[in-house]
């Protein structure tokens, strides 16, 4: 029998190769177009069924509210953003520091770890009143920061601890062979090995810091602390649902931008060596 092997003709329906510039453009355009279509359906739905604006305002009404109240909303956003970012930075610094310290000695890890877990599993909502009393009612912002820090701290700590222990066993032998000092082992082996874990932790932590700041404000906030969460509570009591949506929108845009910044930092630091950031050529 005569065996012939030929390349299969392009099957019908096989996607053709896209031009180089089109792929990234599609990455942006697809979700944007999807979102616009969704808003359009929402608008039509609200108008067609004459839904009460106290239940579901139309996107156009929300946008109008956003424009009208922009200065107030922006001020609230800045407040929430300050709390979130400072709590996040505090969590990153303290999480890495404690994580590094407790992995230097087995004993310290045994001592600290259960309490770190306890701090993590205790609901933040339950600690909030206590924290507010401690920092004083005239400094609610500090209380919010502490609460957001508590929530964002644990992923940093646990990821640093796991990362510090993840160094390749054979590489540890290499360091041992050349009698590396404890500092050399930390600086040139454990810390770089832990970096991908620390960055993954930071990404989780950044999201949790936003959640922490908002929930803390729900629980402990007052007229003195006017972040976005308080705007939502306030608008809710006034049944100004469009304003609630406007505040929500700003909150999620803020969360998204933090997520993108963290993703960018991660790519920048790991781009050439870590499998998670390397795309396979096909």
């Amino acid at each position, binding site marked *: 029998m005569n065996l012939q092997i030929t390349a299969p003709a392009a099957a019908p329906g096989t996607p053709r190769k896209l031009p180089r510039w089109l792929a990234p453009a599609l990455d942006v355009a697809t979700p944007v177009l999807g979102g616009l279509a969704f808003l359009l359906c929402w608008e039509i739905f609200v108008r067609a069924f004459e839904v009460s604006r106290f239940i579901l305002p139309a996107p156009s009404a929300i946008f109008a509210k956003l424009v009208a109240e922009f200065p107030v909303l922006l001020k609230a956003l800045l407040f929430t953003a300050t709390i979130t970012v400072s709590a996040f930075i505090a969590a990153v610094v303290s999480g890495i520091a404690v994580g590094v310290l407790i992995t230097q000695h087995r004993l310290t890890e045994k001592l600290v770890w259960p309490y770190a877990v306890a701090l993590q599993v205790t609901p933040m909502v339950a600690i909030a009143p206590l924290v507010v009393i401690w920092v004083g009612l005239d400094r609610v912002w500090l209380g919010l920061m502490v609460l957001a820090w508590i929530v964002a701290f644990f992923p940093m700590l646990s990821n640093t601890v796991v990362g510090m222990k993840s160094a*390749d*066993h*054979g*590489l540890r*032998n*290499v*360091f*041992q*062979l*050349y*009698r*590396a000092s404890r500092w*050399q082992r930390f600086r*040139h*082996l454990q810390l*770089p*090995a832990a*970096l991908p874990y620390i960055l993954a932790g930071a990404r989780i932590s950044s999201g949790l810091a936003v959640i922490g700041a908002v929930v803390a404000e729900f629980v402990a906030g007052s007229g003195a602390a006017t972040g976005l969460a308080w705007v939502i509570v306030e608008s809710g009591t006034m049944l100004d649902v469009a304003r609630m949506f406007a505040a929500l929108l700003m909150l999620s845009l803020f969360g998204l931008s933090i997520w993108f910044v963290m993703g960018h930092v991660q790519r920048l630091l790991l781009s*050439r*060596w*870590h*499998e998670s950031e*390397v795309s396979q050529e096909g």
Partner: protein
Amino acid sequence: MNAPRAEFLDAEPLVRFSGVDKVYANGTLALKNLDLSVRPGEFVSLLGPSGCGKSTALRIVAALGHHSSGRVERPGEGADARGEIGFVFQEPHLMPWGTVFDNVYLPLKLLGKSRAAAKAEVMAVLEMVGLSGFADSYPRELSGGMRMRVSIARALVTRPRLLLMDEPFAALDEITRNKLSRDLLSIWQASGATIMFVTHSVYESVYLSSRIVVMAARPGRIIGELDIAEPYPRDEEFRLSPEYAAHCREVSALLARAMNEAA
């Protein structure tokens, strides 16, 4: 270049095991009454079935493991003698976050040498393993064989008197393995280092070694030694020669005895 055996015999041994025992914490007797001398310039293979303690012996030489009793003399005892021993593991074990240059530079960095001062040495040893053009590549961009070359370069960069290799080619395909074996022989001759090579391949050990030490398992012990008194450099022709085949038969017979005694 012939490496006559007589030259080895005259010199003081570089490594000497006298009555070395190694007992693991769980009671396993990994090495029993091991006597072994390696002289400067030799290429000695430790050949045996798994569990015969050949890797354990190598780790003891590198001070990555400790023996339970007996006497071990090895280079690199003093504080200033770091870098007297190079070690190549079964896997390359490179730092994924560093370039090829960073990885090869690592031992010198740990010994306190600046990057600028080490540059010439690193480039020279990269040239020796045939990776001159890859100094700025990352390990993930290299093939398995090239990663192993980086690992060998890292072990050689301190110009060690003794190079320990623990089944370095076991995870590579046969074509790459043969190529690396041939290159290892020229590296050995160019560097002047003494090599202790752990393997479970009869063919690999006969091709590479000036002497083969055959070990048996349970407990780990030496069962016999064979000189491969064939001249270096050895090329692909040697692999096809009747002498090579004869040596392989001889070593296989000894290995078979090791297996029988263990069983």
